[in-house]
C-alpha cells in the first residue's frame, strides 16, 4: 500500500507512526496522480527518517506523533490547494 521506506534501515515503529497519520489525513492518497503520489511518498519517507531520528534521540513518543501530525497537516493543506488548482 504505502512505500515510505525512507533512505536507510528504520525502526518499524517510525513507519507505523507516519503511516497512521497518513491514513488519517491523506485518505485519498491512493487516488493521487502519479507525480503527486511520488512527491507524497518522498515526503513521508523524509518524515519516517525524522521520526526515527527523534526516537533515537529519546524524544517523547507523544511529542513525535504530534510533530508528524502537524507536519502532515500543513502538507495536506498545500496538497489540497494544488489539486484544486489543477481542476
Amino acid at each position, binding site marked *: 500500500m504505502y512505500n515510505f521506506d525512507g*533512505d536507510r534501515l528504520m525502526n518499524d515503529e517510525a513507519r507505523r507512526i507516519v503511516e497512521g497519520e497518513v491514513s488519517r489525513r491523506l485518505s485519498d492518497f491512493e487516488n493521487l496522480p502519479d*507525480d*503527486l503520489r511520488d*512527491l507524497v511518498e*518522498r*515526503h513521508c519517507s*523524509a*518524515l519516517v*527518517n*525524522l521520526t526515527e*531520528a*527523534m526516537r*533515537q*534521540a*529519546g*524524544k517523547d513518543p507523544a511529542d513525535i506523533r504530534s*510533530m508528524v501530525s*502537524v*507536519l502532515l*497537516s*500543513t*502538507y495536506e*493543506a*498545500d*496538497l489540497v*490547494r*494544488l489539486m484544486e*488548482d489543477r481542476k
Partner: protein
Amino acid sequence: MTHFSSLKLNDDPGRVAALERYDILDAEAPAGFTDVVTLLKSIFDMPYAAITVIDRRSLRTKAAAGMECGDFPREDTPCNVTIQNAGLTVAENMSADERFRDNPFVTGDAGIRSYIGAPLTSPDGYSIGSLCLFGTEPRMFTEGEKTILQNFAKVVVSQLELRQAATVDRLTGAMTRRSFEDDLARHVDKGSASWLMFFDIDRFKSINDTFGHHVGDKALRHVADCIRDCLQSEGKFGRIGGEEFAVHIGDVAVEEAMEFANKLRKAVETSSFDMIGDRTITISVGAAHHTAGDTVEDWFQKADKAMYQAKTTGRNKVIVC
C-alpha cells in the same frame, strides 16, 4: 535522496538558478515552514530558528521563530558558510571559532554565540538556503540533535518540491497560470515597468482534429521547448490556457520588445516538428507594456487584445500595443 557526490558546491550561478526555479524568493513560503521552525525551536530549546534562502547577494528569512523575518547581506551571515558545506555547519562557541569570531552577528548587538545550520539541498544538488538554529550562549550539540536537524532539512526541501509542483504546468514545464499571475502581481506591486507577451499556437484546433490530441500535446510541448530555449534566463514563461502562453520580460524600448517577440515567433516557425506532415507550427504574439496604474487584469487584457489583433490580421505575426 541527495547524495553528497551529486552536490554542486562551486556553481553559484547554477545554485541561484535552482533557487529561482522554486520561485520562493519573493513569494509566500509554504505554511509548513512556520511549523518547522516552531517545532525546532522547541525541540532544541534555543531562542531562534529560521529557514533562509540565499540569492546572489542577500539572505532572505522565509520563516522564523523567536525573531522577525528579514533580509541580510549574504556575506555577513553564518548561513552563507552553511550552503558552501556538504553537511552541517556547527559552531558551539562562535567567539572562539575562527570562521565566525569576526562575524557581525557575533561581534554586533545580536551577540550570537552558538549556531547549527543544515543546507537545504535540492534534488539536483544545489544548496539554496539553510535551516538553522542559533542562540546567545555557547552550546553543545548532540549527535542526535544533528541527525534531527538534517532530517528536518529534508522535510523542508520536500515541502518546497510540492510547492514547485503547484507552480509548474505538467505538460509543458511552463509556469501555471496562477503562478504566472502571482509573479506578475508581485511585479506590478513593485511598480516597475516591463513587458507582457501573449501568444497562442495558430490553428491549433486543426492540429488536434487532424492528427489527434496526443500530437496536439506534443505540439504544445514542442512550442514550450522552443520558447524556453529562446528565453534562457531572460524572462518568465507561463501557460495561460489550452494553447495560450505568456512571457514576461524586463523593461526595454518598444523596438527591442518587438524584436524579442519576433525572435520567439521565428524560433517556433523555423523549428522542426515532423508529426504534422508538411505543415509548420506558428504563433501569433501580442505584446503590452505595463503602464503605471494598470492592474494585472488590465495588463492581461491589453496583451490579449494585441494577440487577437495579430490573429485577425494574418497570424504568425507580432502586434505591440
